[in-house]
């Protein structure tokens, strides 16, 4: 940190460049947001999808966007779980940085970090900022090196955030030079400022940069020769130290262009490596090799003891880094031929497909072979890819965008790919949308890529279409806070309301040849899990129906009582190779959409049409297949009643859909809204609670607090009574900030007026000076929490379920917190207004 600041102070040009680039970046980002208003929701959807948002907590997380605290929504694109990390970074601050590279704080660290002495890097950095464009590539890495290293060293200190920012500035400084020219000259002499409809200035500026593409600088291999894996690994490394989406897309676009221009046959494996898959997700072939196997292979390949490798892994938490460090210290007997993209990918595929006896040894052998031949940062990315966590902040949507841009620029006609009139950005965006649409309807690179290479990009959707047997990601619904919000949003449109069944999403494909396949929400093949459904669906087809794709919810069902069972029951069902005879938990399909019927793709058709297709395709059979209960009404009272009915029927609530909407695969669409029982009147209220204790964080929250103990105020007794524990709904950043604030309030023992459960004692106690406003799903009688004890139940207290932080109430003191009497009142109101309570207790 210190060194970085010093370097800046000494070096005016660097500073200026940094400032200039920061400005540009702002511009770019703002424009990006403006250009793609739909992007954010989609992203949130993808993130939530990744988490398999089964948990109510996760659902809530998506709902209370207003709190602005959910990691899913905060994260750039890739979801919260995997902040990008360069492989090479932690080597510098030996041990120190390795010990705890905190992903959340130091977002990206560069390749060169730790390999260069700071002084050398500083000198070079200066040169980079002042020198013209061509020299920059190598030098920018060096600058990152300094900053990255510094950031790592400062880990854990409050300054770390600053260091990361500084680093970003440094990176931008180096990059600004080559970019600057294009941007500054753009409005005047180079290209007229054509405002493309719906395209932001950032996208236009980014498009202008494509003129600087220089194949010779990128492609180290001759045309037609296999693309080296090192090229891809270097691209990954660069991407990981970049945080701007435009910049990431451009890096990848250039890489893809280089492959297209030389060895297009290697594009498919390269794309698969970028998205870290070995086959379309419905094929069920996945990486995600267990750590034990990887550690063994790494020990074998590097000739080190397994427990040492294991130890380093547990210290750094990143096998990629361990692999990088290990390999770099041992020579081999003979130089090995370099790894190629195609061969790495085929080995990955082989590894993923290896099963049966001795599969572990076979896998280890294959992995060892890869590792032994790998150089530099390659082993790091091999390890991460095998784990199934690339961690470079490269979302699939970005890969698709880069793919589209690269194909247009490299394969499009001269007039399409040039930016002479400044309209390239618009065409790039159109290409992106075309490719994303094609992929969302036919999520298979095996089918998409050949079509992209064989036909003009804007015609891709004529050649790649939805087909039975290739599942699409299901359309998802957006959360709402209540009926009024739904009515507001759908004012003036026709909509329909369906029960939201609490089971597992099932996309049922019946193929021409009679095969039946059932796919999960994540496109996993669930046919073996539901042999009973697979057997019953063909029987239920209406006469003449040969092929159909249904969107359904598979729900545990009591056939004797004829009633729906809760999700918990469904989850007890075996997952693999279920035999019909052994099935204890019966399942009923609730069908609500039809995507395909006898050769007709219905995705683009309105819901009314899809629904009638559904009704004409299959017939209902109680206990096996039913149509989702639906109602069309715009009356608040009626909707409220229907919501209560739905809850009483054992479902989660309602889904409200506009009748003219198309089926939008993988989108959390604004055309579908969900209305859950949690948002029934009376529970949407917020509570002001005092923070009186905390538990230490684990995992990536290590060093701060992971969850907090909350209390309400009892003015009569002047007590603080615990009401809940809160551990979700914070962004990591916010958590750090809150932790810092609360650390100052730690007291050695609880105050005498704290009332808490003996079984719920936090790791640290706070002087109750901080008040948070939280939102909760539910109130319930609690044997642990003490809030309003004696007011509702003679001994037990009341707790709130799924609390989420809305905001910090700086204006309130602990005495101003919600009172115990208020809590009791809310609880009584909840009991009287809610009919589902009894239903819930039946479970």
């Amino acid at each position, binding site marked *: 940190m210190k060194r970085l600041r010093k370097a800046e102070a000494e070096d005016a040009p660097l500073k200026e460049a940094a400032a200039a680039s920061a400005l540009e970046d702002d511009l770019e980002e703002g424009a990006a947001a403006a250009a793609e208003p739909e992007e954010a929701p989609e992203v949130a959807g993808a993130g939530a999808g990744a988490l398999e948002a089964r948990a109510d907590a996760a659902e809530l997380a998506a709902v209370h966007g207003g709190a602005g605290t959910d990691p899913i929504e905060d994260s750039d694109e890739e979801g919260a779980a995997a902040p990008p990390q360069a492989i090479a970074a932690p080597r510098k601050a030996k041990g120190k940085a390795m010990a705890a590279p905190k992903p959340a704080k130091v977002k990206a660290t560069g390749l060169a970090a730790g*390999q*260069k*002495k700071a002084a050398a890097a500083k000198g070079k950095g200066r040169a980079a900022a002042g020198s013209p464009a061509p020299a920059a590539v190598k030098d920018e890495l060096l600058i990152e090196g300094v900053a990255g290293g510094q950031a790592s060293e400062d880990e854990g200190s409050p300054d770390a955030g600053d260091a990361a920012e500084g680093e970003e500035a440094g990176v931008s400084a180096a990059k600004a030079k080559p970019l600057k020219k294009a941007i500054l000259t753009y409005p005047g002499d180079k290209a007229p400022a054509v405002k493309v409809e719906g395209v932001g200035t950032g996208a236009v500026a980014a498009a202008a940069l494509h003129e600087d593409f220089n194949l010779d600088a990128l492609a180290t291999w001759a045309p037609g020769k296999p693309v080296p894996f090192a090229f891809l690994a270097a691209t990954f490394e660069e991407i990981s130290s970049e945080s701007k989406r435009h910049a990431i897309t451009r890096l990848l676009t250039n890489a893809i262009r280089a492959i297209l221009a030389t060895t297009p046959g290697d594009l498919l494996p390269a794309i698969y490596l970028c998205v870290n898959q070995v086959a379309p997700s419905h094929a069920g072939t996945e990486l995600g090799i267990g750590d034990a196997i990887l550690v063994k292979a790494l020990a*074998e*390949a*590097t*000739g*080190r*003891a397994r427990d*040492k490798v294991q130890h380093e892994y547990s210290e750094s938490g990143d096998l990629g880094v361990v692999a990088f460090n290990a390999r*770099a*210290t*041992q*020579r*081999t*007997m*003979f130089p*090995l031929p370099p790894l190629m993209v195609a061969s790495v990918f085929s080995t990955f595929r082989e590894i993923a497909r290896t099963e049966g006896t001795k599969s572990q040894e076979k896998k280890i*052998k294959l992995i*060892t*072979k890869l590792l*032994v031949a790998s150089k530099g940062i390659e082993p790091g990315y091999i390890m991460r890819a095998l784990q199934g966590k690339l961690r470079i902040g490269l979302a699939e949507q970005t890969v698709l965008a880069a793919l589209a841009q690269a194909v247009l620029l490299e394969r499009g006609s001269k007039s399409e790919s040039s930016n002479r009139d400044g309209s390239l950005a618009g065409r790039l965006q159109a290409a992106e949308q075309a490719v994303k649409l094609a992929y969302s309807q036919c999520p298979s690179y095996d089918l998409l890529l050949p079509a992209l290479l064989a036909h003009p990009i804007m015609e891709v959707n004529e050649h790649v279409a939805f087909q039975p047997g290739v599942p699409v990601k299901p359309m998802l619904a957006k959360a709402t806070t209540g009926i009024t919000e739904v009515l507001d949003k759908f004012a003036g449109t026709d909509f329909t309301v369906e029960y939201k069944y609490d089971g597992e999403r099932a996309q049922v494909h019946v193929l021409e040849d009679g095969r039946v396949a059932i796919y999960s929400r994540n496109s996993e093949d669930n046919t073996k899990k539901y042999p009973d459904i697979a057997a019953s669906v063909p029987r239920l087809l209406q006469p003449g129906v040969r092929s159909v794709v249904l969107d359904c919810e598979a729900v545990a069902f009591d056939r004797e009582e004829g009633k729906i069972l809760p999700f918990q029951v469904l989850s007890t069902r075996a997952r693999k190779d279920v035999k019909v005879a052994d099935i204890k938990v019966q399942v009923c399909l609730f069908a609500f959409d039809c995507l395909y019927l006898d050769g007709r793709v219905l995705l683009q058709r309105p819901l009314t049409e899809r629904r009638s297709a559904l009704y004409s395709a299959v017939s209902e059979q109680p206990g096996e297949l039913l149509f989702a209960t639906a109602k069309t009404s715009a009356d608040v009272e009626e909707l409220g009643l229907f919501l209560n009915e739905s809850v009483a029927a054992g479902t989660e609530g309602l889904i409200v859909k506009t009748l003219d909407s198309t089926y939008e695969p993988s989108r959390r669409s604004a055309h579908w809204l969900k209305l859950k029982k949690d948002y029934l009147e009376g529970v949407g209220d917020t509570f002001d609670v005092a923070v009186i204790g905390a538990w230490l964080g684990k995992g990536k929250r290590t060093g701060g607090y992971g969850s907090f103990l909350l209390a309400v105020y009892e003015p009569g007794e002047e007590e603080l009574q615990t009401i809940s524990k809160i551990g979700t709904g914070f962004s990591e950043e916010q958590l750090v900030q809150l932790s810092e604030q609360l650390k100052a309030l730690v007291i050695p023992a609880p105050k005498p007026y704290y009332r808490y459960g003996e079984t719920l004692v936090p790791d640290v106690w706070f002087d109750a000076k901080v008040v948070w406003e939280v939102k909760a799903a539910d109130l319930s009688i609690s044997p642990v929490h003490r809030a309003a004890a004696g007011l509702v139940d003679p001994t037990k207290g009341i707790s709130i379920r799924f609390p989420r932080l809305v905001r910090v109430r700086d204006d309130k003191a602990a005495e101003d917190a919600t009172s115990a009497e208020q809590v009791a009142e809310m609880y009584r109101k909840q009991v009287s207004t809610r009919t589902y309570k009894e239903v819930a207790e039946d479970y």
Partner: protein
Amino acid sequence: MFEARLTQGGLLKKLLDAVKDLVTDGNFDCSTTGFGLQAMDTSHVSLVSMMLRSDGFDHYRCDRNISMGMNLANMAKMLKCANDKDIVTMKAEDQGDTITFMFESENQERISDFELKLMDIDSEQLGIPDTEYTATVRMPSSEFQRICKDLASIGDTVLISVTKDGVKFSTSGDIGSANITIRQSTSADKPEDNTLIDMQEPVALTFALRYLNSFAKATPLSPTVTLSMSKELPVVVEYRISDIGHISFYLAPKIEDEEMDDNE
């Protein structure tokens, strides 16, 4: 037709014990010169080169050069069934897919046949360059074994430095560090107990102890071991087997931190 008869059956057992943990599979090459094996460990960090000359066998016949791929662990399982004093005969057809090990007890009262399935192993031809080494140390093999074992309990790697006075083995680890120096000596009663150093220029290289300890399993094959080193080249750890051949291990050195900074 390949046939080779060795009175000292125990020798084969010992050889296998020395390599089976290092190399999983290997191609044994039989020619008129002898019976040999060259193989690298899976990490390609070390290489084993073993040769038993045809004149060292009691009987040796090899009509044409053949290469037999064997899993060394399985081969060791079979050889384990021989007594040390048994006479061992290896037999294989030119186009066959098995090799037969026949063990005859000293008094010819017990004869056993073991047939091992051969396997196809694609192995690169390993060209080991003939190098003039700048430093050679010959020392008692048991001494070398002890040093490697002792140091491995302290650290992972050993720095071997050769000067004209002696050879120094150093390591360091979490608990501390260790240095062992063996001086040149010519005075021992038995010549194999001497340590001889032949050096053009001083050399110091770092190696992973794990491998050296694995090599040291060849100690029973020879009373002495020779270490040959040159700057930045693999060390050769050679055990001469009297009257019949040798087993040599090559090990690529570790990359020093300093070098790494220069290279990158």
